[in-house]
Protein backbone atom coordinates (compact mmCIF):
# COMPACT_ATOMS: atom_id res chain seq x y z
CA UNK A 1 0.00 0.00 0.00
CA UNK A 2 2.74 2.44 0.90
CA UNK A 3 5.21 2.05 -1.91
CA UNK A 4 3.84 5.00 -3.87
CA UNK A 5 4.47 7.28 -0.93
CA UNK A 6 8.18 7.73 -0.63
CA UNK A 7 9.49 11.08 -1.84
CA UNK A 8 9.27 14.16 0.40
CA UNK A 9 6.07 16.20 0.43
CA UNK A 10 5.38 19.12 -1.77
CA UNK A 11 3.92 21.83 0.49
CA UNK A 12 0.76 23.48 -0.77
CA UNK A 13 1.40 26.19 -3.33
CA UNK A 14 0.99 29.80 -2.30
CA UNK A 15 -2.25 30.10 -4.24
CA UNK A 16 -3.58 26.87 -2.72
CA UNK A 17 -2.75 28.11 0.78
CA UNK A 18 -4.45 31.42 0.10
CA UNK A 19 -7.56 29.65 -1.25
CA UNK A 20 -7.69 27.48 1.85
CA UNK A 21 -7.34 30.45 4.21
CA UNK A 22 -9.97 32.42 2.29
CA UNK A 23 -12.29 29.43 2.50
CA UNK A 24 -11.85 29.14 6.24
CA UNK A 25 -12.67 32.81 6.66
CA UNK A 26 -15.80 32.34 4.53
CA UNK A 27 -16.74 29.24 6.48
CA UNK A 28 -16.37 31.13 9.73
CA UNK A 29 -18.32 34.14 8.46
CA UNK A 30 -21.25 31.96 7.39
CA UNK A 31 -21.05 29.77 10.51
CA UNK A 32 -21.15 32.79 12.83
CA UNK A 33 -23.33 35.24 10.87
CA UNK A 34 -23.03 38.89 11.77
CA UNK A 35 -19.49 38.65 13.10
CA UNK A 36 -16.81 40.53 11.23
CA UNK A 37 -14.09 38.07 10.23
CA UNK A 38 -10.77 39.40 8.93
CA UNK A 39 -9.57 38.39 5.48
CA UNK A 40 -6.13 36.82 5.02
CA UNK A 41 -3.49 38.10 2.58
CA UNK A 42 -5.10 38.67 -0.81
CA UNK A 43 -4.02 38.47 -4.44
CA UNK A 44 -3.59 41.56 -6.55
CA UNK A 45 -6.27 42.11 -9.16
CA UNK A 46 -6.88 44.41 -12.10
CA UNK A 47 -8.99 47.48 -11.29
CA UNK A 48 -11.82 47.93 -10.69
CA UNK A 49 -11.87 44.46 -9.08
CA UNK A 50 -10.70 44.80 -5.48
CA UNK A 51 -8.32 42.25 -3.93
CA UNK A 52 -11.00 41.14 -1.47
CA UNK A 53 -13.50 40.17 -4.16
CA UNK A 54 -10.70 38.69 -6.27
CA UNK A 55 -9.52 36.53 -3.37
CA UNK A 56 -13.03 35.30 -2.62
CA UNK A 57 -13.65 34.51 -6.28
CA UNK A 58 -10.41 32.64 -6.85
CA UNK A 59 -11.10 30.65 -3.70
CA UNK A 60 -14.48 29.47 -4.90
CA UNK A 61 -14.53 29.41 -8.68
CA UNK A 62 -13.86 26.68 -11.17
CA UNK A 63 -15.33 25.43 -14.42
CA UNK A 64 -18.43 24.13 -12.71
CA UNK A 65 -19.63 27.37 -11.11
CA UNK A 66 -21.27 29.97 -13.36
CA UNK A 67 -20.24 33.53 -12.51
CA UNK A 68 -22.23 36.73 -12.99
CA UNK A 69 -20.37 40.02 -12.80
CA UNK A 70 -22.12 43.28 -12.10
CA UNK A 71 -21.90 45.44 -15.27
CA UNK A 72 -19.37 47.74 -13.60
CA UNK A 73 -16.96 44.81 -13.24
CA UNK A 74 -17.73 43.07 -16.51
CA UNK A 75 -14.81 44.27 -18.59
CA UNK A 76 -12.13 42.49 -20.62
CA UNK A 77 -9.25 42.88 -18.12
CA UNK A 78 -11.29 41.32 -15.29
CA UNK A 79 -12.70 38.61 -17.52
CA UNK A 80 -9.27 37.62 -18.75
CA UNK A 81 -7.81 37.80 -15.23
CA UNK A 82 -10.46 35.38 -13.94
CA UNK A 83 -10.35 33.12 -16.98
CA UNK A 84 -6.60 32.85 -16.74
CA UNK A 85 -6.61 32.16 -13.00
CA UNK A 86 -9.67 30.02 -12.60
CA UNK A 87 -11.14 28.83 -15.94
CA UNK A 88 -14.42 30.59 -15.28
CA UNK A 89 -17.79 30.15 -16.98
CA UNK A 90 -19.48 33.52 -17.29
CA UNK A 91 -23.27 33.71 -17.31
CA UNK A 92 -25.42 36.54 -18.66
CA UNK A 93 -28.01 37.01 -15.91
CA UNK A 94 -28.04 36.96 -12.11
CA UNK A 95 -30.56 34.14 -12.21
CA UNK A 96 -28.13 31.71 -13.89
CA UNK A 97 -25.34 32.48 -11.48
CA UNK A 98 -23.87 30.14 -8.90
CA UNK A 99 -21.75 33.07 -7.80
CA UNK A 100 -22.55 36.74 -8.37
CA UNK A 101 -20.23 39.64 -7.70
CA UNK A 102 -21.39 43.18 -7.01
CA UNK A 103 -18.89 45.87 -6.09
CA UNK A 104 -21.32 48.55 -4.95
CA UNK A 105 -24.56 48.14 -3.00
CA UNK A 106 -26.17 50.77 -5.23
CA UNK A 107 -25.72 48.36 -8.14
CA UNK A 108 -27.19 45.37 -6.32
CA UNK A 109 -30.07 43.91 -8.35
CA UNK A 110 -33.27 43.12 -6.43
CA UNK A 111 -32.49 40.04 -4.36
CA UNK A 112 -35.24 38.06 -6.08
CA UNK A 113 -33.42 38.51 -9.39
CA UNK A 114 -30.95 35.85 -8.24
CA UNK A 115 -31.65 32.12 -8.20
CA UNK A 116 -33.31 31.04 -4.96
CA UNK A 117 -32.79 27.30 -5.50
CA UNK A 118 -35.51 24.68 -5.91
CA UNK A 119 -37.67 23.11 -3.22
CA UNK A 120 -35.89 19.73 -3.42
CA UNK A 121 -32.53 21.35 -4.21
CA UNK A 122 -32.32 24.64 -2.31
CA UNK A 123 -28.54 24.51 -2.72
CA UNK A 124 -28.95 25.42 -6.40
CA UNK A 125 -29.11 29.06 -5.44
CA UNK A 126 -26.90 32.06 -6.06
CA UNK A 127 -24.27 33.16 -3.57
CA UNK A 128 -23.72 36.91 -3.79
CA UNK A 129 -20.37 38.50 -3.01
CA UNK A 130 -21.09 42.12 -2.19
CA UNK A 131 -18.56 44.88 -1.65
CA UNK A 132 -19.88 47.52 0.74
CA UNK A 133 -18.26 50.86 1.63
CA UNK A 134 -18.04 49.81 5.29
CA UNK A 135 -19.21 47.01 7.54
CA UNK A 136 -20.20 49.53 10.19
CA UNK A 137 -21.94 52.89 10.22
CA UNK A 138 -25.08 51.82 8.37
CA UNK A 139 -28.50 51.13 9.87
CA UNK A 140 -28.08 48.71 12.78
CA UNK A 141 -30.04 45.50 12.55
CA UNK A 142 -30.31 42.67 15.07
CA UNK A 143 -30.06 39.23 13.48
CA UNK A 144 -31.27 35.90 14.78
CA UNK A 145 -30.80 32.37 13.51
CA UNK A 146 -28.37 29.44 13.29
CA UNK A 147 -24.84 30.43 14.23
CA UNK A 148 -26.00 33.25 16.48
CA UNK A 149 -26.08 32.61 20.20
CA UNK A 150 -28.74 35.19 21.06
CA UNK A 151 -28.74 38.06 18.60
CA UNK A 152 -26.01 39.63 16.50
CA UNK A 153 -26.10 43.29 15.58
CA UNK A 154 -24.71 44.36 12.22
CA UNK A 155 -24.63 47.76 10.57
CA UNK A 156 -23.10 47.49 7.11
CA UNK A 157 -23.59 50.47 4.81
CA UNK A 158 -26.31 49.15 2.58
CA UNK A 159 -29.02 51.12 0.79
CA UNK A 160 -32.34 51.86 2.32
CA UNK A 161 -34.68 48.97 1.65
CA UNK A 162 -32.01 46.27 1.70
CA UNK A 163 -33.17 44.83 5.01
CA UNK A 164 -36.79 44.67 3.87
CA UNK A 165 -35.62 42.72 0.86
CA UNK A 166 -33.57 40.52 3.15
CA UNK A 167 -36.63 39.84 5.28
CA UNK A 168 -38.46 38.62 2.17
CA UNK A 169 -35.47 36.49 1.21
CA UNK A 170 -35.38 34.93 4.66
CA UNK A 171 -39.13 34.31 4.54
CA UNK A 172 -38.64 31.96 1.57
CA UNK A 173 -36.33 29.71 3.61
CA UNK A 174 -35.06 27.08 2.79
CA UNK A 175 -35.07 28.78 -0.60
CA UNK A 176 -33.20 32.04 -0.93
CA UNK A 177 -29.80 33.50 -1.57
CA UNK A 178 -26.80 33.85 0.70
CA UNK A 179 -24.72 37.03 0.82
CA UNK A 180 -21.11 37.60 1.78
CA UNK A 181 -20.37 41.26 2.46
CA UNK A 182 -16.87 42.64 2.50
CA UNK A 183 -15.41 46.09 3.03
CA UNK A 184 -12.07 44.94 1.64
CA UNK A 185 -10.65 44.04 5.04
CA UNK A 186 -13.31 41.98 6.76
CA UNK A 187 -16.25 39.76 5.91
CA UNK A 188 -19.75 39.37 7.24
CA UNK A 189 -21.76 36.32 6.28
CA UNK A 190 -25.48 36.51 5.77
CA UNK A 191 -26.88 33.04 5.18
CA UNK A 192 -30.54 32.79 4.18
CA UNK A 193 -31.25 31.02 7.49
CA UNK A 194 -30.72 34.26 9.38
CA UNK A 195 -33.51 36.81 9.79
CA UNK A 196 -33.98 40.26 11.17
CA UNK A 197 -35.24 40.13 14.70
Amino acid sequence: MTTAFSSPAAPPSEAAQRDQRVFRVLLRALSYPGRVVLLPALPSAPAPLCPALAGLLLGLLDLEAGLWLTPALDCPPIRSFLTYRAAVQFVATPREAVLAVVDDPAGLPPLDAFHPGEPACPERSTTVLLRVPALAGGPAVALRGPGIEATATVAPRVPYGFWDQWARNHARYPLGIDIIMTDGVGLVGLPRSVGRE
Partner: protein
Amino acid sequence: MIPNDDEVAGGYNFAYLDEQTKRMVRRAILKAVCIPGHQVPFGSREMPLPAGWGTGGLQVTASVIGPDDVLKVIDQGTDAATNAVSIRAFFRRVAGLATTERTREASLIQTRHRIPETPLTEEQILVLQVPQPEPLRQLVPRGAAARRLHAFADYGVMYVKLYEDIARFGRVTLAYDYPVLVNGRYLASPSPIPRFDNPKLDNSRALSLFGAGRERRLYAIPPYTRVASLDFGDHPFEVQRWSVGCALCGSRASYLDEIGSGGPGARMFVCSDTDYCEERREASAPARRAAGGGRP
Protein backbone atom coordinates in the same frame (compact mmCIF):
# COMPACT_ATOMS: atom_id res chain seq x y z
CA MET B 1 2.82 15.60 16.90
CA ILE B 2 4.55 16.86 13.77
CA PRO B 3 5.16 14.10 11.22
CA ASN B 4 8.71 13.07 10.34
CA ASP B 5 9.88 13.81 6.82
CA ASP B 6 9.81 10.15 5.91
CA GLU B 7 6.12 9.90 6.82
CA VAL B 8 5.11 12.52 4.31
CA ALA B 9 4.17 11.58 0.77
CA GLY B 10 5.17 13.12 -2.51
CA GLY B 11 3.47 12.63 -5.82
CA TYR B 12 0.07 13.74 -4.52
CA ASN B 13 -1.36 17.18 -3.91
CA PHE B 14 -1.52 18.64 -0.40
CA ALA B 15 -4.25 16.72 1.46
CA TYR B 16 -4.61 14.36 -1.54
CA LEU B 17 -7.47 16.10 -3.37
CA ASP B 18 -6.65 18.38 -6.27
CA GLU B 19 -7.43 22.08 -5.77
CA GLN B 20 -10.37 22.05 -8.18
CA THR B 21 -12.02 19.25 -6.26
CA LYS B 22 -11.45 21.10 -3.01
CA ARG B 23 -13.15 24.20 -4.39
CA MET B 24 -16.15 22.07 -5.39
CA VAL B 25 -16.36 20.47 -1.93
CA ARG B 26 -15.85 23.87 -0.28
CA ARG B 27 -18.74 25.41 -2.20
CA ALA B 28 -20.93 22.51 -1.13
CA ILE B 29 -19.87 22.95 2.50
CA LEU B 30 -20.73 26.67 2.44
CA LYS B 31 -24.18 25.88 1.04
CA ALA B 32 -24.62 23.22 3.70
CA VAL B 33 -23.85 25.76 6.43
CA CYS B 34 -26.44 28.16 4.97
CA ILE B 35 -29.15 25.45 4.95
CA PRO B 36 -28.57 23.59 8.23
CA GLY B 37 -29.40 19.88 8.04
CA HIS B 38 -30.07 19.85 4.30
CA GLN B 39 -28.12 17.20 2.40
CA VAL B 40 -26.13 18.91 -0.33
CA PRO B 41 -25.09 16.64 -3.22
CA PHE B 42 -21.41 16.84 -4.10
CA GLY B 43 -19.14 15.21 -6.66
CA SER B 44 -17.65 12.74 -4.23
CA ARG B 45 -14.33 11.35 -5.40
CA GLU B 46 -12.83 7.92 -4.93
CA MET B 47 -10.44 8.05 -2.04
CA PRO B 48 -7.57 5.72 -1.20
CA LEU B 49 -9.70 4.22 1.57
CA PRO B 50 -12.67 1.94 0.91
CA ALA B 51 -15.99 3.71 0.44
CA GLY B 52 -17.92 3.38 3.70
CA TRP B 53 -14.77 3.75 5.79
CA GLY B 54 -14.92 7.50 6.15
CA THR B 55 -14.31 8.72 2.61
CA GLY B 56 -16.93 11.47 3.06
CA GLY B 57 -15.33 12.70 6.27
CA LEU B 58 -11.96 12.39 4.59
CA GLN B 59 -13.01 14.61 1.69
CA VAL B 60 -14.53 17.19 4.02
CA THR B 61 -11.42 17.24 6.18
CA ALA B 62 -9.11 17.38 3.15
CA SER B 63 -11.03 20.37 1.78
CA VAL B 64 -11.20 22.27 5.06
CA ILE B 65 -7.78 21.59 6.50
CA GLY B 66 -4.73 23.82 6.12
CA PRO B 67 -1.14 23.76 7.26
CA ASP B 68 -2.04 25.61 10.49
CA ASP B 69 -4.52 23.00 11.66
CA VAL B 70 -4.03 20.40 14.35
CA LEU B 71 -6.01 17.26 13.59
CA LYS B 72 -7.49 14.70 15.92
CA VAL B 73 -9.10 11.52 14.57
CA ILE B 74 -11.24 9.20 16.66
CA ASP B 75 -13.33 6.10 16.06
CA GLN B 76 -15.62 4.74 18.79
CA GLY B 77 -14.30 7.60 20.93
CA THR B 78 -10.69 6.57 20.85
CA ASP B 79 -7.64 7.77 18.91
CA ALA B 80 -6.15 4.28 19.06
CA ALA B 81 -8.84 2.52 17.02
CA THR B 82 -7.30 1.06 13.88
CA ASN B 83 -9.36 3.11 11.43
CA ALA B 84 -8.62 6.32 13.34
CA VAL B 85 -4.92 5.45 13.29
CA SER B 86 -5.14 4.80 9.57
CA ILE B 87 -6.92 8.08 8.76
CA ARG B 88 -4.56 10.07 10.98
CA ALA B 89 -1.59 8.45 9.25
CA PHE B 90 -3.17 9.31 5.90
CA PHE B 91 -3.27 13.02 6.71
CA ARG B 92 0.21 13.00 8.18
CA ARG B 93 1.36 11.40 4.97
CA VAL B 94 -0.48 13.51 2.39
CA ALA B 95 -0.63 16.82 4.24
CA GLY B 96 2.31 16.71 6.63
CA LEU B 97 -0.11 17.83 9.32
CA ALA B 98 0.34 18.07 13.01
CA THR B 99 -1.95 15.69 14.85
CA THR B 100 -2.98 15.35 18.45
CA GLU B 101 -4.93 13.00 20.68
CA ARG B 102 -6.03 15.85 22.93
CA THR B 103 -9.52 17.14 22.24
CA ARG B 104 -8.59 20.55 23.61
CA GLU B 105 -5.54 20.91 21.34
CA ALA B 106 -7.32 20.03 18.09
CA SER B 107 -8.67 22.58 15.64
CA LEU B 108 -10.29 19.87 13.53
CA ILE B 109 -11.68 16.60 14.84
CA GLN B 110 -12.73 13.83 12.47
CA THR B 111 -14.84 11.21 14.15
CA ARG B 112 -16.82 8.07 13.59
CA HIS B 113 -19.69 7.11 15.94
CA ARG B 114 -18.90 9.50 18.82
CA ILE B 115 -18.76 13.15 19.80
CA PRO B 116 -16.06 13.93 22.35
CA GLU B 117 -17.20 14.39 25.97
CA THR B 118 -15.08 17.53 26.36
CA PRO B 119 -17.28 20.41 25.19
CA LEU B 120 -16.07 21.82 21.89
CA THR B 121 -15.24 25.49 21.38
CA GLU B 122 -15.83 28.07 18.68
CA GLU B 123 -12.28 27.48 17.49
CA GLN B 124 -12.97 23.85 16.62
CA ILE B 125 -14.69 22.06 13.75
CA LEU B 126 -16.11 18.57 14.10
CA VAL B 127 -16.21 16.35 11.00
CA LEU B 128 -18.46 13.32 11.28
CA GLN B 129 -18.26 10.28 9.00
CA VAL B 130 -21.69 9.28 7.78
CA PRO B 131 -22.58 5.93 6.20
CA GLN B 132 -26.19 6.85 5.40
CA PRO B 133 -27.07 10.54 5.32
CA GLU B 134 -30.76 10.04 4.56
CA PRO B 135 -32.67 9.70 7.85
CA LEU B 136 -35.72 8.47 5.95
CA ARG B 137 -33.85 5.74 4.03
CA GLN B 138 -35.19 2.83 6.08
CA LEU B 139 -38.73 4.11 5.70
CA VAL B 140 -38.54 5.56 2.18
CA PRO B 141 -35.77 3.76 0.30
CA ARG B 142 -36.10 5.86 -2.84
CA GLY B 143 -33.96 8.97 -2.83
CA ALA B 144 -36.29 10.94 -5.10
CA ALA B 145 -39.27 10.26 -2.82
CA ALA B 146 -37.30 11.16 0.30
CA ARG B 147 -36.15 14.42 -1.26
CA ARG B 148 -39.78 15.34 -1.96
CA LEU B 149 -40.62 14.78 1.69
CA HIS B 150 -37.71 17.00 2.72
CA ALA B 151 -38.85 19.68 0.26
CA PHE B 152 -42.19 19.87 2.03
CA ALA B 153 -40.81 19.16 5.52
CA ASP B 154 -43.24 16.25 5.50
CA TYR B 155 -41.83 14.03 8.23
CA GLY B 156 -45.06 12.32 9.24
CA VAL B 157 -43.68 8.95 8.19
CA MET B 158 -40.92 9.22 10.81
CA TYR B 159 -43.31 10.25 13.56
CA VAL B 160 -45.52 7.30 12.64
CA LYS B 161 -42.55 4.95 12.96
CA LEU B 162 -41.67 6.36 16.39
CA TYR B 163 -45.30 6.21 17.46
CA GLU B 164 -45.61 2.59 16.37
CA ASP B 165 -42.46 1.74 18.31
CA ILE B 166 -43.95 3.25 21.44
CA ALA B 167 -47.27 1.52 20.92
CA ARG B 168 -45.62 -1.86 20.48
CA PHE B 169 -42.63 -1.70 22.77
CA GLY B 170 -43.31 1.18 25.10
CA ARG B 171 -40.26 3.00 23.76
CA VAL B 172 -38.50 4.10 20.58
CA THR B 173 -36.32 1.27 19.33
CA LEU B 174 -33.58 3.43 17.82
CA ALA B 175 -30.42 3.13 19.89
CA TYR B 176 -28.13 5.19 17.69
CA ASP B 177 -28.41 7.35 14.58
CA TYR B 178 -31.49 8.80 16.26
CA PRO B 179 -33.04 11.38 13.88
CA VAL B 180 -32.90 15.06 14.70
CA LEU B 181 -34.75 18.10 13.47
CA VAL B 182 -32.23 20.81 12.64
CA ASN B 183 -33.18 24.47 13.02
CA GLY B 184 -36.82 23.40 13.12
CA ARG B 185 -36.76 22.55 9.42
CA TYR B 186 -34.71 19.58 8.14
CA LEU B 187 -34.79 16.07 9.48
CA ALA B 188 -31.20 14.84 9.58
CA SER B 189 -29.13 11.87 10.61
CA PRO B 190 -26.71 12.73 13.40
CA SER B 191 -24.60 9.84 11.97
CA PRO B 192 -24.48 6.58 13.96
CA ILE B 193 -23.60 8.26 17.24
CA PRO B 194 -25.42 6.84 20.25
CA ARG B 195 -28.47 8.78 21.43
CA PHE B 196 -26.24 9.83 24.30
CA ASP B 197 -24.39 12.21 21.99
CA ASN B 198 -27.41 13.84 20.35
CA PRO B 199 -27.76 16.60 22.95
CA LYS B 200 -24.17 17.68 22.27
CA LEU B 201 -25.23 18.80 18.79
CA ASP B 202 -27.85 21.15 20.19
CA ASN B 203 -26.54 24.71 20.41
CA SER B 204 -22.97 23.50 20.17
CA ARG B 205 -20.33 26.21 20.08
CA ALA B 206 -18.54 24.38 17.27
CA LEU B 207 -19.49 23.84 13.65
CA SER B 208 -20.28 20.21 12.76
CA LEU B 209 -19.80 18.97 9.20
CA PHE B 210 -21.15 15.63 8.03
CA GLY B 211 -19.63 13.82 5.05
CA ALA B 212 -21.14 10.81 3.27
CA GLY B 213 -18.75 9.91 0.45
CA ARG B 214 -20.44 6.80 -0.91
CA GLU B 215 -23.82 8.52 -0.94
CA ARG B 216 -22.28 11.77 -2.28
CA ARG B 217 -23.95 14.06 0.23
CA LEU B 218 -22.67 16.43 2.85
CA TYR B 219 -24.50 18.56 5.39
CA ALA B 220 -23.81 20.83 8.31
CA ILE B 221 -25.05 21.84 11.69
CA PRO B 222 -23.76 25.35 12.37
CA PRO B 223 -22.90 26.44 15.91
CA TYR B 224 -25.72 27.74 18.08
CA THR B 225 -28.35 25.85 16.13
CA ARG B 226 -31.38 24.13 17.54
CA VAL B 227 -31.05 20.37 17.18
CA ALA B 228 -34.07 18.51 18.53
CA SER B 229 -34.18 14.73 18.81
CA LEU B 230 -37.67 13.69 17.74
CA ASP B 231 -39.96 12.73 20.59
CA PHE B 232 -43.48 13.05 21.96
CA GLY B 233 -44.68 15.06 24.95
CA ASP B 234 -45.57 11.93 26.89
CA HIS B 235 -42.49 10.04 25.70
CA PRO B 236 -39.60 12.49 25.92
CA PHE B 237 -36.26 11.69 24.29
CA GLU B 238 -33.90 9.86 26.65
CA VAL B 239 -30.19 9.12 26.53
CA GLN B 240 -28.34 6.03 27.67
CA ARG B 241 -27.56 5.78 31.40
CA TRP B 242 -25.41 3.37 33.37
CA SER B 243 -25.84 2.22 36.93
CA VAL B 244 -22.09 2.38 37.48
CA GLY B 245 -19.32 4.83 36.65
CA CYS B 246 -16.16 4.43 34.61
CA ALA B 247 -13.90 1.83 36.22
CA LEU B 248 -10.84 3.94 35.42
CA CYS B 249 -11.76 7.57 36.08
CA GLY B 250 -15.05 7.20 37.93
CA SER B 251 -16.96 9.45 35.54
CA ARG B 252 -20.71 9.05 35.67
CA ALA B 253 -21.24 11.61 32.95
CA SER B 254 -19.64 9.88 29.97
CA TYR B 255 -20.63 7.18 27.49
CA LEU B 256 -19.29 3.85 28.67
CA ASP B 257 -17.99 0.80 26.83
CA GLU B 258 -18.39 -2.59 28.38
CA ILE B 259 -15.05 -4.36 28.63
CA GLY B 260 -14.38 -7.99 29.25
CA SER B 261 -17.21 -10.45 29.36
CA GLY B 262 -16.89 -11.97 32.77
CA GLY B 263 -20.56 -12.86 32.72
CA PRO B 264 -23.35 -11.19 34.66
CA GLY B 265 -22.24 -9.57 37.87
CA ALA B 266 -18.72 -9.09 36.57
CA ARG B 267 -19.52 -6.43 34.01
CA MET B 268 -17.04 -3.58 33.88
CA PHE B 269 -17.41 -0.28 32.08
CA VAL B 270 -14.90 2.35 30.98
CA CYS B 271 -15.17 5.67 29.15
CA SER B 272 -15.42 5.33 25.39
CA ASP B 273 -13.71 8.75 25.06
CA THR B 274 -10.16 7.77 25.98
CA ASP B 275 -8.78 11.33 25.99
CA TYR B 276 -11.52 12.51 28.35
CA CYS B 277 -10.85 9.56 30.65
CA GLU B 278 -7.12 10.11 30.63
CA GLU B 279 -7.48 13.83 31.29
CA ARG B 280 -9.67 13.09 34.30
CA ARG B 281 -7.22 10.58 35.63
CA GLU B 282 -4.34 13.01 35.17
CA ALA B 283 -6.28 15.75 36.93
CA SER B 284 -6.91 13.51 39.89
CA ALA B 285 -3.26 12.49 40.09
CA PRO B 286 -1.35 15.79 39.78
CA ALA B 287 1.69 14.39 41.55
CA ARG B 288 2.14 11.64 39.01
CA ARG B 289 1.79 14.10 36.18
CA ALA B 290 4.38 16.47 37.65
CA ALA B 291 6.77 13.55 37.97
CA GLY B 292 6.59 13.02 34.24
CA GLY B 293 3.97 10.33 34.18
CA GLY B 294 1.69 12.30 31.89
CA ARG B 295 1.98 12.61 28.18
CA PRO B 296 4.75 14.80 26.74
